[in-house]
């Protein structure tokens, strides 16, 4: 921030600077506004979400428990008429008339036109949205399933893709180019096309309703192989030859020389893989049918019922689902830009 101010001070007066900052701030709001709204709304209760007009912060109508009434009643301040200034609770509302009671004397019913009263609002974050996720729903299991799939699939993706990339970039063999081209060509096949064949294979292998059914098909990615291959092409062959002269086996060359030197590209692929696996929806939905195997994305989907949607839980869970990827992205964004630049992939 200090740097920004310094830059602005040094180049004072150029309106294009201000215009670009205004544009960038606008863009930031456009991108982050919905996310912030989501985060703020996730702290609203079901009733708070239904408030009209909608609010940004978790405002909701104050309710009071009154003797003789089963549920807590919403409170209003009367603005006109004989009860002006009093705080009354609504028991019933018919048309434009509301039947209200004074919390102090609940036996007397008062009729008030609804135009003559204002809601009493209070700021109350509904932390229980998050608490209930853990206590009322098996959020822990969904979270663990997702973490397991993401972590295992990412490790396997890095391993398998880097081995393929090593072979395709550093060994000369007949058919190397065709193999590579075929691999790249699969990028052009939309995943929905191979959904059914993939499912048939997964079911034949008995992988349905198993987390491994989500992991294995995701392990080999043409994008990953391409990215790593392009990066490995830039590693000098001299290094491999030096290692060969140093008595290193091909596996040791891969493990001790090529992998460590490909770290920037591996970091990029790791981030991509984490994001892909974490956000993946269609394939897990097809493979995983039992709710104990659900990932977070599937659980989110199941909150949206046919008749009712528990928006407060849905929003809270969306926030929790977003958090890990966001944190990983924030921590590793330096490597993404570096890695993408050096991997020659735009």
């Amino acid at each position, binding site marked *: 921030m200090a740097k920004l101010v310094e830059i602005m001070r040094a180049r004072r007066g150029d309106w294009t600077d201000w215009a670009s900052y205004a544009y960038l701030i606008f863009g930031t709001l456009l991108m982050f506004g919905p996310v912030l709204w989501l985060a703020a709304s996730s702290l609203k209760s079901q009733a708070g979400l239904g408030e009209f007009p909608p609010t940004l912060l978790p405002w909701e109508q104050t309710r009071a428990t009154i003797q003789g009434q089963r549920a807590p009643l919403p409170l209003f301040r009367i603005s006109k008429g004989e009860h002006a200034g009093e705080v009354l609770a609504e028991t019933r509302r018919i048309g434009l008339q509301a039947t209200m009671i004074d919390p102090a004397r609940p036996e007397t019913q008062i009729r008030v036109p609804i135009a003559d009263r204002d809601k009493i609002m209070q700021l109350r974050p509904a932390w229980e949205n998050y608490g209930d996720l853990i206590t009322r729903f098996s959020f822990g299991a969904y979270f663990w399933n997702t973490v397991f799939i993401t972590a295992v699939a990412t490790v396997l993706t890095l391993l398998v893709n880097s081995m393929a990339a090593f072979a395709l970039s550093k060994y000369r063999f007949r058919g190397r180019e065709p193999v590579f081209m075929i691999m790249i060509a699969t990028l052009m096949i939309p995943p929905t096309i191979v959904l059914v064949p993939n499912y048939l294979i997964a079911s034949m292998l008995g992988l349905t309703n198993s987390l491994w059914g989500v992991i294995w098909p995701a392990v080999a990615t043409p994008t990953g192989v391409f990215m790593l291959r392009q990066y490995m092409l830039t590693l000098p062959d*001299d290094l491999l030859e030096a290692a*060969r002269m140093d008595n290193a086996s091909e596996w040791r060359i891969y493990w001790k020389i090529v992998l460590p030197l490909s770290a920037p590209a591996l970091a990029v692929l790791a981030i991509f893989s984490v994001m892909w696996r974490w956000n993946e929806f269609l394939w897990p939905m097809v493979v995983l049918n039992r709710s104990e195997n659900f990932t977070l994305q599937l659980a989110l989907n199941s909150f949206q019922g046919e008749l009712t949607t528990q928006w407060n839980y849905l929003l809270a869970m969306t926030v929790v689902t977003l958090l890990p990827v966001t944190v990983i992205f924030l921590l590793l964004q330096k490597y993404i830009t570096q890695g993408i630049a050096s991997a020659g992939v735009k």
Partner: protein
Amino acid sequence: MATLNLQGLVKRYGNFGVIHGVSFDIADGEFVVFVGPSGCGKSTLLRMICGLETVTEGQILIDGQVMNDVPSAQRGLALVFQSYALYPHMTVYQNMAFGLENLGTPKAEIAARVGEAARMLRLDDYMQRKPTALSGGQRQRVAIGRAIVREPRVFLFDEPLSNLDAELRVGMRAEIAQLHRRLKTTMIYVTHDQVEAMTMADKIVVLRAGTVEQVGAPLDLYNHPANQFVAGFIGSPRMNFLTGRISASGADGVAVDVPGVGTIRTHAGAGATIGQEATIGIRPEHIRPGPADGNNVSGEVVNVEQLGGLSYIRLGSPDITIQLSGQTGLGVGDRAEINLPAEAIHVFDADGLAMARAG
């Protein structure tokens, strides 16, 4: 300690020949330099000896054993790469220890051998640094150290000094020569720089376009080049060549008529056919200023380079470069009289082969 024999080595990529039948022997403890212009196949030859390139035809023998199909690591050789090829993610110590670790050498012995090499190469203070934190000369020494710890039978150097600046190059040249004297191991050194070849080698192998032009001690090549290519390649500035026809042939040598210059008498090529095309060659340092007995040439000075202790003068027509000791008063545009001493002149026939010189 090893001898090396190359027998009719051929290397082809598809139909494209790179090495065309190279044969020579390297004795135990010899410092051999492969020299030639870029693209002559000297690096390919070295890589064939290492086992990094396959041999199309012929045999490589180390200590009398055929090595063609032996993997590079088991040939007992160590190669210092032109790019150094240090592992950038490893420290200096790890770089030097990597080869021994791969052989399963005990840790204590690795430490001892790396430590000894480090002391020898004055790298003790840098052992925990990464190669990127080292200067060019230090990296070079690490690359040599990595070769030393493996105690190879033969050291191979692939243009190791070409990435260093001129001053460092002279220093490293001396260090490698000193290393050879100390280790007394057979060394093969590839360079395109004939000065490196002349100063370091016990034996020079001059290569051109995949064939050996001449093999010999540095001064043999300088004094008795086998052909025009070697004569032009060895020596700096390069030898002057003038082409003409043999006009007279005597017992002590031929006289060559060079158009625009006159008749040049030589002490070489006795008995050659008169009328035959021939090229005479004379090194800039053998040309003397001023007219003397025979072989006087005059021309206009087109360029003067004063180095203080030495001066180079270039005549325009005929195109001759002269090296004078000390400084010169000649300027561009002056006429210079020079004398080509007959005993210093080499004569090459139409195929570029040297004719025998008297004495």
